[in-house]
């Protein structure tokens, strides 16, 4: 894999995704049950997870995965029912922005946000995915 090429693709697309997430969070701040905004943030987190995992940016993929899980539960439930939910998503956005900036500045995988990961709790076990086959 041409790492430099994919790092640039990641920086470009991740920056767009984070801007879109930011806009959608402003909508969710006003209406935590806005389905279109929730769907968008869910999809963008899913995409951040995939790109991060492909490049070995575990901090990005892990955080996006946990946020995606949380968003998936809110989508099923018809909206964000947790008073702190939108604040948590803003915190996640901020953390992902720092990680993307770190990749841009250093070209290296960024460090994890252990505090936020602990707040979000464990995602589904990766081993579960391996059982697909």
């Amino acid at each position, binding site marked *: *894999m*041409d790492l430099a090429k*994919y790092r640039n*693709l*990641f920086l470009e*697309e991740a920056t767009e995704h984070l801007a879109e997430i930011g806009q959608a969070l402003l909508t969710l701040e006003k209406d935590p049950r806005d389905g279109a905004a929730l*769907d*968008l943030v*869910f*999809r963008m987190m*899913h*995409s951040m*997870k*995939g*790109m991060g*995992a*492909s490049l070995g940016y575990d901090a990005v993929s892990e955080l996006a*995965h946990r946020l*995606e*899980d949380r968003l*998936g539960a809110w989508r099923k439930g018809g909206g964000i029912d947790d008073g702190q939910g939108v604040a948590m998503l803003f915190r996640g956005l901020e953390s992902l922005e720092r990680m993307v900036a770190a990749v841009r500045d250093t070209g290296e995988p960024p460090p994890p946000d252990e505090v936020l990961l602990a707040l979000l709790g464990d*995602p*589904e076990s*990766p081993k*579960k*995915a391996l*059982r*697909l086959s």
Partner: protein
Amino acid sequence: MTVRVLVADDARFMRQLIRDIIEPEGFEVVGEAADGRAAVEEFSRLQPDIVTMDIVMPKRSGIDAVKEILALDPTAKVAMVSALGQEALVTEALAAGAVDYIVKPFKPDSVISTLRKIAEKAP
């Protein structure tokens, strides 16, 4: 004979990655789609041998797109592109008629062998 592939994924990063994995191995990416609706339209227009279909996409999910493609052409060969935590969705897609799946992050050898296996399947 060259195997013609349509790549459906809302992330440019992933579309490029699949292209870079499969084209050196003799597959031809004849088209790309960034959402489920475009995937169905591009399938109709291009009639590819295989579609790689991401599950989470805007406008129409990958699973809905599979169902529509198979309604248009029951012999269509669609491989789902899944990620961690999507086991239930993959099962649903296979039940809907997808022939196989590849898992993100991609292992190039696994992607190639899965697509070769699909290409060799009788329609």
